[in-house]
């Protein structure tokens, strides 16, 4: 699979301020690990010609992704594109080309903050944020999402909690998250938790709604 | 799908300057739309005589569409306003005959709006399809309509007798000469 080669820097290097640090500051003395370059060519057999249509069907107005002119407005208004392995523009291009595996393994949809700047600014009205959400759905479904990255874990924890209780409680979500991703954060953020507690801003009681059965019935009914 | 879908027949009167040109544009742009609308070209929507609309219904149309230039854009200054006035009058008249409102439609479509021709034709076809065949009893002069050849027996009570329309059609003493 070409996935490995294209996204060799996935996961551990996501958090790099590539777009912001001054060019002179370089790599901050980090040693660059040599990696053999794999064949990056794309053979038609590796591409999925129906992928763009699949995404388009997932999203209202999704067919507009065929209108994309690759101008890069989305990437440049995106507050987080510097931290993405594929800029939003590239993600759209690869979606259109049918590079299904690369797209579904990309970190980009999980880095997206859903701030909708791209959607508002796109000169061709491509609903980019919604496409990001669609890509998340598919990558969760097909289990191609980055396992140790926080956002997918968070998503699942959040959805589970709502499903069970109808409401979320920030403190509990965070706790769950730390345990599943990086327990060290428990220690690191203990001070903040303490402060929030003193300010009365740390909800301890786990909230829940009364008609939880209703909620479950509703969710089942809409998925039926 | 045992029963064939009802295919309404719709007669359209398009002014040559705007709507007919827009229909040409729809063609040039290869915009696909329902084949049920048959356009008759007139110089101006103001030429649409109420008797044309009534005659169309009598002759087997299930719907009539009138297309003219947008207000203020008439090639002849105000022909489309005349069309509008007659249209309002016709609507009243048709409801008296029990012909549903949805069977007659007036649209302003400019020469640039090929997409509107497509949309309006599709909408109108679906609308009239939903209303079903116009239940208008025709005299022996008219042949049965459509390939399905709806039998006279199918026409239940409440169908409009053509005789009722006759006085209107004859209003000006003008039958097809």
């Amino acid at each position: 699979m070409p996935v490995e080669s294209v996204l060799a820097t996935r996961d551990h290097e996501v958090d790099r301020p590539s777009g912001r640090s001054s060019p002179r500051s370089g790599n901050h003395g980090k040693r660059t690990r040599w990696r053999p370059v794999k064949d990056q060519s794309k053979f038609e057999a590796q591409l999925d010609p129906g992928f763009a249509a699949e995404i388009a069907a997932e999203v209202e107005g999704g067919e507009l992704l065929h209108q994309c002119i690759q101008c890069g407005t989305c990437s440049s208004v995106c507050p987080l594109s510097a931290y993405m392995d594929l800029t939003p523009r590239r993600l759209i291009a690869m979606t259109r080309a049918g590079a299904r595996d690369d797209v579904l393994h990309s970190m980009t949809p999980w880095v997206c903050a859903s701030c909708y700047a791209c959607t508002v600014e796109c000169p061709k009205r491509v609903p980019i944020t919604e496409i990001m959400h669609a890509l998340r759905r598919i990558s969760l479904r097909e289990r191609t999402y980055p396992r140790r990255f926080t956002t997918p874990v968070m998503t699942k924890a959040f959805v589970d909690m709502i499903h069970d209780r109808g409401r979320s409680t920030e403190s509990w979500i965070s706790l769950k998250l730390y345990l599943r991703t990086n327990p060290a954060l428990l220690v690191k953020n203990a001070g903040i938790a303490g402060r929030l507690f003193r300010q009365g801003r740390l909800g301890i009681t786990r909230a829940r709604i009364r008609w939880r059965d209703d909620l479950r019935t509703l969710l089942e009914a809409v998925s039926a | 799908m045992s029963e064939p879908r009802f295919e309404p027949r719709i007669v359209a009167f398009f002014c040559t300057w705007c709507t007919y040109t827009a229909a040409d544009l729809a063609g040039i742009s290869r915009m696909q739309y329902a084949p049920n609308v048959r356009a008759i070209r007139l110089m101006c929507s103001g030429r649409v005589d109420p008797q044309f609309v009534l005659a169309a219904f009598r002759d087997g149309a299930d719907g009539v569409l009138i297309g003219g230039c947008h207000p203020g854009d008439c090639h002849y200054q105000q022909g489309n306003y005349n069309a509008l006035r007659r249209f309002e009058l016709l609507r009243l008249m048709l409801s008296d005959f029990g012909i549903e409102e949805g069977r007659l439609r007036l649209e302003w479509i400019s020469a640039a709006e090929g997409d509107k021709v497509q949309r309006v034709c599709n909408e109108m076809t679906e609308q009239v399809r939903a209303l079903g065949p116009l239940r208008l009893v025709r005299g022996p002069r008219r042949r049965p309509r459509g390939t399905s050849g709806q039998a006279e027996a199918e026409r239940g009570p409440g169908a409009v007798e053509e005789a009722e329309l006759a006085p209107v059609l004859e209003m000006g003493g003008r039958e097809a000469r």
Partner: protein
Amino acid sequence: MLEPESTRPPAPISSNGGPKIGVYVCHCGLNIAGKVDVKAVVEFAASLPHVTVARDYKFMCSDPGQELIQQDLRDGLVNRVVVASCSPLMHETTFRRATAAGGESPSHFQMASIREHVSWVTADGDEATEKAKALVAGAVRRVALHEVLEPRQSPVRPDVMVVGGGIAGIHAALTLADAGKHVYLVERETTIGGHMAKFDKTFPTLDCAACILTPKMSAVRAHPNITLWTFSDVVSVEGFAGDFRVRVRHRPRYVREDLCTGCLACIDACVHKHGKFDDEWNEGLSKRKPIYIPFPQATPPVVVVDRDACIWFKTGKCPRTCVDACERDAFDFEQTETYDEVEVGAIVLATGYRTFEASKMPEYGYGLYPNVYTSLEVERLLNAAGPTNGEIVLRDGSRPRTVGIIHCVGSRDAKHNPWCSKVCCMYSLKLAHMVKERTGAEVYNFYIDMRTPGKGYEEFYDRILKEGVHMVRGRVAGVTDEAASPEEEGHLVIRAEDTLIGSVRRIPVDMVILAVGIEPQPDAQEVRRLFNISCGSEGFFTERHPKLAPVSTFTDGIFLAGACQGPKDIPDSVAQAGAAAAEALAMIDRGHVTLEASTAFIDEAACSGCKTCVGLCPFGAITFDDERRKASVNEVVCKGCGICVGACPSGAAQQHLFTDAQILSEIEGVLEYV
């Protein structure tokens, strides 16, 4: 070679000369035959009443196709013709002519549009065939009732009006005038020259705009065949091809054009010692006095008084030093609007364009950051006659060291103008070159796609690349003064993804130039109504055919030149202006136009004298004889709309080729198939 592909033996011809209809179904290559079962349509047509011949052919509009019709007419097989092919707006004239050439009245012809209205818009072949049959049936039933009409002709006046005095209007006017026609050139600004007169250099040759334009401007003024009306606008247009009556309003300049010599002594003498009001010609980058001339070579070289700024008009108290300074006594503060009415045979519209209003895109900071300029403003800065005498300086007088040029501002954007403005890539390259040459600055061009089709254009792009202009492929998301690093401090920062390297770049610059796109004039819709032509929803005037009639309009006698029809550069505008002039000349030199045959007439026997029609006619073509209590139509004035016919309660008013009987038959036809 004629090879009729299916023929029905001629039916016995009735001795009384009744209708014998020939139906000719066109394949139009595969345009029709690819969808419609042409044979089935022919067979169906042959079964219709009065049809004596039914044939199909690959291309009916071709010579052999027309010959097919003419032969059948000559052989007496048919005396009425129905062609089922493209839209009548396309080829009706062609086939009417063929019918006439076959010896039959051209009015014994009817067309069924089975291409634009059927094969091109219907997905299913069977349904398309059924619809084609219906339209053919309508045409056959109607043509049986067509009457013989003699084509009416009307003489063409030899004079021409050209509206708009930019490069397109100037070129059209000079071409027509050189051919000996009298031209009225109407311009609403105080000078001709248009946008081109504001430019410094023109791409790709970099010749100076003034050097090539001003001789033409002088030629306009000097030409004995041109009446130049500046500061004037068309207020009404009446009549039709060959005989337009146009009313023109002249706004007062408060200086007599026939006396002013353009010595400009009055401007020096004005009580305002310095310019105080935004100079529109310099895009507001400089100030002018209440009395001014837009630029030294303005044509005509006549000053104008700005009524809203002039102290005399505002207070009535001014020593009027300007008047004293004028040796020719050219001032006339009592001037009012005057009107002229002229009769012309043809009109050329060359009303031009405007540039996109940059403040509509606040993300680019125009109007917020002083050093964000539009391309037009920079053209003025570059112009030696401009506000800085050709120096590229920022608002504080300093020279920029880095300049960013943003392409596609307002263009290719679904939120603003979806179209490509065509000229911006090239003029942005030109500006990059000029700015680099004059200031030595580093220049960054931000583009989405480079579009340089045109003679010498790609070569120009090569040259600019060689000169070291930085080309960044990415649409700019925003211009900001927010500094994210020390080197950005005090600069404007342009943010764009460099899509070719896949990273977002922040480039600090001193000056931003917005390559604003081309859009229709704000009053395009009103102008189009005035001249009774059509335009797209955006406002560019619609040509009669995008390929084959690019300078004609749907209104005979009115032609288009320049960017009023769509974004165009100077060479294209001039070429189109020449073409429009040639079309106008062809019409004038033919000497006559064929009038619409479909005029109204009154069947006096049926007229009840109700006068309904008289008030309805928008053209006053109907008169009423009080003595006989009958209405009558003046067929020369009648435009053939049929409004009176539709309204006549007694059926006395009728319209040639659109009689009640004909239309009712067509209705029956389109409904009574299968």
